[in-house]
């Protein structure tokens, strides 16, 4: 089971990586801000899967803080007018 969960976690990371390739290219800042969202959601999924596989302590807390702060980072970026 833990092998399966780790494999899915790796898969999610690869998916996020491919998405990042597209999203960081732009054009436009809205695309780039989505990189934070993508990494937030994907990162949380990979974190929960990997943590559940190895039974590490505190993984859900890190996932919670990641959820909270990815949201605020995105907010900060949308509030930044760019030229």
């Amino acid at each position: 089971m833990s092998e399966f969960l780790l494999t899915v976690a790796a898969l999610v990371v690869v998916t996020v990586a491919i998405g990042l390739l597209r999203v960081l290219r732009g054009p436009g800042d809205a695309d780039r801000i989505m990189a934070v969202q993508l990494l937030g959601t994907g990162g949380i999924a990979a974190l929960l899967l990997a943590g559940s596989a190895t039974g590490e302590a505190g993984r859900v807390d890190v996932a919670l803080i990641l959820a909270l702060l990815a949201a605020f980072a995105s907010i900060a970026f949308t509030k930044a007018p760019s030229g």
Partner: protein
Amino acid sequence: MSGLLDLWTVVAVSGGAFFFLAGTVGLLRFPDVLTRLHALTKADNLGLGLVVLGLLPRAEGLQGAVKLLSVWLLVMLSGATVSQLIARVAGRESPPA
């Protein structure tokens, strides 16, 4: 019983992974910012939800399960609202014709 729970975990987590993949395919294939935003917010959030549901049987007690669910709720809430803000940035950059 534990075999059934394991089956649930495998099915739900696989479904979650599928939706993550679908979200990335959307990111790659959709033609403009707003549709890409759609793909990202909806598919990835659903993928995360399925992953959370799949990991629930493995959570540490009631507190662990509640924490897992609150992660999902938090991501859904912030995803829904932040995507509105991102869409505004997109609208500022390329005003709809």
